[in-house]
């Protein structure tokens, strides 16, 4: 079975520019997560979708970050405008469902963003 796909793998932009990341979860997985991993830290959840609805976006800086999951499959995370502190790896993960019996999260390879 194909894993979680993300693109691009690397992105370098200047501050105040915009950037978008794409994630394709494992087929049939209803729940999708975006995590931000700053160098030297563990991943931090930005937003969680159940199908195409938002379950948790409490840690998403909504003044500059946005995310959508149209049709409950692929998802896009956007930053506009980017700041230096947004330099990080952005990880996408998916799980079968939100129920405790199907909780295991499968991660994609991540996108490393460098803001200069």
């Amino acid at each position: 079975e194909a894993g979680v796909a993300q693109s691009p793998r690397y992105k370098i932009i200047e501050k105040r520019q915009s950037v978008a990341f794409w994630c394709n979860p494992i087929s049939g997985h209803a729940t999708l997560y975006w995590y931000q991993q700053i160098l030297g830290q563990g991943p931090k959840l930005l937003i969680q979708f159940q199908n195409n609805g938002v379950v948790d976006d409490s840690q998403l800086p909504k003044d500059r970050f946005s995310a959508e999951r149209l049709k409950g499959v692929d998802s896009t995370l956007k930053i506009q405008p980017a700041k230096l502190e947004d330099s990080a790896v952005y990880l996408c993960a998916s799980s079968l469902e939100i129920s405790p019996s199907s909780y295991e999260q499968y991660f994609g390879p991540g996108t490393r963003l460098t803001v200069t």
Partner: protein
Amino acid sequence: AQTVTQSQPEMSVQEAETVTLSCTYDTSENNYYLFWYKQPPSRQMILVIRQEAYKQQNATENRFSVNFQKAAKSFSLKISDSQLGDTAMYFCAFMAPGGGNKLTFGTGTQLKVEL
């Protein structure tokens, strides 16, 4: 809110030896799950082992085993017969069902396996 603490930023071990990575957590939940994830330089997070808090028996997956001490809120990972391919960043993570299955990660331990 839950917190996960990994107090060992870096560790090294000789090939074929055994190493233990420490993790402590804080929560008021009674039912939860604990995980160890491995992140090699490729950045892909790989699940190593999981433990359900309601299970008293410590989880084991081949060379990987945990020492789960619920009262002490401690969850350490033991890697036996260390291999060069075990070199990676290891993250301890916590999840409480009902909270959307959000994972709370520690800051990680960089493990280096040496010849």
